[in-house]
């Protein structure tokens, strides 16, 4: 072996770990698993990972069930219910009696004035018109905008002290989806898929579904792979043309099943002949297999999204029969079917395109949007519970931020990234509890503050992933899903 080449290998293997030892910092993980090794060398990645499906599924099936995990997980899948536009915490899960007392007055001087998106200066505080009640054995306080979800109070861990830095939708959505207000990082679902792979060979590992056929804030970036290989990006379901479940799933017009199969056979034969000449190129094999996979997907995906097989009772449970709840109910029910089929990360969008963004007329806006998701979400929790899936499925609810106690345009509320509410249920989370608190007006998170990075770290933790160990070498920087910040919110499971 030539000297330089040898030296290179030795240095590659040793220099980092020596350096780490000397610096005593966990900036580098020795390449232990095949996945890490591939990620670090960048070699032949495409050859072994097909949309997080093929190779990973094989790994998972052949070895221990949780090969990618850093510690034992309590959740296998995630359903992230994203209320796009920013739901008001003050009118749903975080009651502030003082707000109604001071309604109409300016924000007291003792509260630091935040930079708000719309910058309305000196706007009076807006009262909350909800009625509130205590629910379940835990007595969680929930407003009458979520009467159905309230029935699951004992399943919910309500985190009232969330905060982030994105004062606008774009930054907020980017932070909630990718861990940074600035574009370019991988989405959380992409990280999870990269870390854990998939348990299905026939469906994508990371699925995105929207309540309306339009583009949401930041477009495809919200489920993009960032600097991870495209293999790990989210796949929109139900968003394609021609009512396809997944883009290009349907056979091209005028081509029947037989003709398609014939073409696939010929492609395989020709590509096998080609690969025989180049036995060392593993990508060639991967491409050959990808056709089989795509073929299987063509039958599996339509089956997965076929709701006609669900009973009338189930359809009713999700509100499919009512106009107001049908859209979101449908994707909630699809989410359950995906979880059953081993899909790892499912993100549902309500109010696609900032629907929840109640700058004015919050009463009518939130009446509409809460009404459209309340029953479906409750139905989802009920259904997951009775099928024994809730214990292994983490359900997360929230938007990119909350809303201000100050009014905007008299009847609305502006964006509030400095204190808002999210909740989690299932997946090992202890329900019936409140974590953290905002100040007396719900403007700033004050107790046990939970940055979006903490939320992400917690989701990863519940899936068995450590936010620091999960890393990817991008341009010489070991990038991690929470930008090296955040920590597991221990109270979720204690």
């Amino acid at each position, binding site marked *: 072996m030539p000297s330089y080449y040898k030296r290179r290998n030795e240095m590659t293997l040793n220099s980092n770990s020596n350096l780490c030892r000397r*610096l005593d*910092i966990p*900036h580098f993980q020795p390449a232990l698993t095949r996945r890490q090794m591939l990620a670090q060398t960048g070699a032949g990645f495409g050859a072994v990972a097909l949309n997080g499906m093929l190779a990973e599924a094989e790994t998972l099936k052949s070895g221990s069930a949780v090969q990618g995990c850093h510690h034992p997980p309590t959740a296998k899948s995630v359903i992230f219910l994203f209320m796009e536009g920013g739901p008001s915490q003050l009118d749903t899960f975080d009651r502030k009696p003082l707000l109604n007392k001071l309604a109409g007055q300016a924000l007291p001087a003792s509260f630091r004035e935040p930079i708000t998106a719309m910058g309305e*200066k000196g706007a009076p505080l807006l009262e909350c018109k909800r009625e509130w009640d205590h629910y379940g054995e835990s007595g969680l306080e929930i407003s009458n905008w979520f009467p159905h979800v309230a029935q699951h109070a004992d399943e919910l861990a309500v985190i009232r002290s969330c905060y982030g830095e994105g004062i606008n939708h774009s930054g907020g959505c980017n932070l909630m989806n990718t861990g940074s207000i600035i574009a370019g990082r991988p989405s959380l679902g992409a990280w999870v898929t990269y870390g854990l792979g998939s348990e299905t060979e026939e469906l994508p590992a990371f699925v995105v579904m929207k309540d309306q056929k339009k583009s949401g804030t930041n477009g495809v970036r919200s489920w993009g792979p960032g600097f991870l290989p495209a*293999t790990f990006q989210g796949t929109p379901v139900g968003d394609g043309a021609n009512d396809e479940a997944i883009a290009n799933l349907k056979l091209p017009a005028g081509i029947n099943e037989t003709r398609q199969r014939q*073409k696939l056979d010929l492609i395989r034969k020709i590509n096998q002949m*080609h690969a025989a000449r180049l036995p060392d190129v593993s990508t060639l094999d991967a491409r050959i297999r990808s056709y089989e996979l795509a073929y299987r997907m063509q039958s599996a995906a339509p089956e997965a999204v076929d709701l006609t097989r669900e009973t009338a009772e189930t359809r009713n449970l999700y509100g499919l029969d009512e106009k107001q709840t049908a859209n979101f109910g449908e994707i909630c029910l699809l989410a359950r079917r995906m979880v059953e089929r081993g899909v790892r990360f499912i993100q549902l969008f309500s109010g696609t395109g900032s629907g929840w963004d109640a700058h004015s007329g919050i009463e009518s806006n939130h009446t509409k949007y809460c009404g459209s998701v309340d029953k479906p979400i409750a139905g989802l929790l009920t259904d997951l519970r009775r099928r024994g899936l809730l214990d292994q499925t983490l359900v997360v609810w929230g938007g990119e931020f909350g809303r201000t106690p100050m009014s905007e345009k008299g009847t609305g509320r502006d964006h509030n990234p400095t204190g808002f509410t999210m909740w989690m249920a299932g997946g090992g989370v202890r329900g019936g509890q409140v974590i953290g608190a905002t100040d007396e007006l719900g403007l700033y998170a004050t107790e046990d503050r939970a940055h979006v990075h903490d939320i992400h770290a917690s989701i990863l933790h519940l899936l068995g992933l450590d936010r620091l160990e999960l890393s990817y070498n991008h*341009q*010489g920087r070991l990038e991690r899903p929470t930008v090296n910040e955040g920590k597991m919110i221990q109270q979720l499971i204690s």
Partner: protein
Amino acid sequence: MSRLFKQSVNHQTAISSISMRRPSGVRLRRTGSNSDPCWNRILQTSCIAMGVAIIFLFITSVGYGAEDDAKLRFFESKVRPLLLAKCYECHSADKAEGGLRLDTGRHVRKGGDSGKVIIEGNPDQSLLVDAIRYQNLEMPPEAPLTETEQQVLIDWIRDGAFWPEESDSAHNTEPVAEQVWWAAQPLAPGKTPEASNESRSRNAIDLYVDRELHSAGLKRAATADRRRLIRRLSLDLLGLPPTPEQIQRFLDDRHPNAYGRLVDRMFAEPAYGERMARRWLDLVRFAESDGWRADAFRPQAWRYRQFVSDAFNEGMSYDQFVAFQLAGDEIAPGDDRALAAVGLLRLGIYEFNQRDAEGQWQNIVDELTDVTADVFMATGLACAKCHDHKFDPIPRSDYFRFRSVFEPILFVDRKPERTTSESNAQIQTLLDELASVEGDDLQSLANGAVDRFPLNVQDMYRKPASERTTYEHQIAYLVARQVIDEGLTDSKVTAALGKERSKRRKEILQELSRLSANPYEKADLITVADADGSIRPTRLPGRSNGKAFEPGAPQVLGGQSFPEQRDSPTQTSGRRTALAAWITSPENPISARVLANRIWQYHFGTGLVDSPNDFGRLGQLPSHPQLLDYLAKSLIDSNWNIQELQREIVNSETYRQATDHPQLSRALEIDPDNRLHWHRTVQRLDAEQYRDSLLIAMNALQTQYGGPSVAGTPGRRSIYLQRKRNSSDEMLNALDSPNGLVGTAKRDVTTTAPQTLMMMNSPRIVNAAKSFAGHVRKQVLNIDEANRASAFVMLACEIISGMPADQKTIDLLAPLAANGQEGEADVCHILINSNSFLFIE
């Protein structure tokens, strides 16, 4: 290159087109400069990152009690951030003033020249507390700590001055600094290796490569056949496959230097510049939209692409290429092309409605700093933004010295120049009427937009331009842009003026546009210039006084200061020109290595350093260090002639090798990754090669060179398709074309199910197959029916893969091709899905 610092720059910006009056009766409060939440966040970030490291260490090595937990939290959330922000500038590894360092537990306990500074458990006896109370000493010297801050340190000392780490490493660069960083060493190509008897080549590249091969007991593969060579070379240099006619001409060329002549022809093609531009555009995160929520299209962005493509075609030297992109406005302020070139600094993302203008500007300049270091130096400066680089010898001060180069930079949106000769009087009349039609209504609309910003930002904006500092100009630009883009939208203007007046306004504006005098006209060129006014000193985040960083090179690369060329506040500073000159100066060994490596990667798929944007310690070491230095030195010696280096590479035997090797299994055992270049590594078509090849197969490629981007999916080369960051072209995206959010030095090559589904089922591909079939059909019409199907398969294969079909393929596909137009389309669809199309041998 000449340095023309002395020319003043015309700051023609959107700002100047509307002047905002301060609303009467409103008193403006001035808030302190420490109120910027972004700074705070960054401070917090650095500390959290550091805290994370400490926590990890602590858990693994020491054990962990609940009490310690509380102390640790207090330390990491309160104490360390405070020390970092207020003390480390003078009392840390970089500069232990008074012999005191406060950045490690050991040093804190040890104290400084005056002895111990803390007595654990006894704040009143501690010198440190004396100092922060301004009793004997006065620390920090600029301003005392607030009472709350003082109390933090007092509480900390009272509780035992808990310090979590057990090693000295957290804020210590010594272990790194003492190591030698290969990329910063002078170029050392050594003596060109002697040609051995067996060697077929005198090309220096081959000699370097052969030496390593021989010592590994390997030999190069044979030269590839001409068909494969022309396809490889054509896709490499032009991004386009050769047509069957071009292949035939090359096969028929009996000249002894047929290959060399082919290379020459290709460098002369305009497509060469397009191909090279695409590679460069990846690197500099080129896209044509804002990349935040609105993702507005940037109709001017193509001018930058045009500069890049022209530069490659003209054979511009790399030092000029760098200078134009970093300082085109300084070196040639009157030249549109130079102004477009420096548009490199305008390619980043932009949020159209961000009220936190100061935080936004902070992010913008951070990004410019990072991108510049990545692109030209392959050095991850970003790590050093919040802390000294953990692996590379880059202290935080280097980051801020580098960043200060961009301190005075201002975005300039240039309006189209007046081209008509109409009298000024006519224009003035129209402008007067415009003012009367708009009245105060538009002014108050604009004022309302300004009022949404924090008060100190409003102040900066409302200041007379002549009194602004560079920083205030920068912030004012961001405000002004929002006033126009968001505050004065058509619907808002119509609502404010009413139907009649807004209709008249539109007419006036149209007329003014015709006269090239519309004050609201969209920019035709986006560029930068140094702002007027005094240049804000570059300081650590959150600091408004204390140490200021002067522009200069990183210490490990010489650390020289860049000369300041500003004699008056309206002159450009020359900082960026100085940076560009330093990047390509002979004393700087890293730039030539980085570029040589990129060019090597362009031709072999993998660089000699397989981490093209990281030449630091987390990156890879060069497989052939002397070869890399030889190439780098050749670049410098040729006055940075990129084409000359490419010629040397593509003319080498190393480049011309075949993919197969007589001793394949043995070679694979010794060097499975082919880092020694014992054969040619197969490469998949990239997204643009894929789409452009399809266009050629369809006979639908329009070869028009240059110009603005086109919407939709016409027959133009892929480089001319509009690139929007939030909505990428399905086909290009499926084949790993980057979205332009961050720079991409090496693309991923993924194989995914959505990609395969697209190739099988997308109507676009199916239609491509039909057109492809039609193109082939026309050429085999005159062949007799018995042989037509075979001929069809033969020709289709040659068009798509450069190789005529072999007998087995003909046997497989000819029956289908005999099956009418549908069958022919199926054959073409199959071939589009074949690996002999998708992979380049």
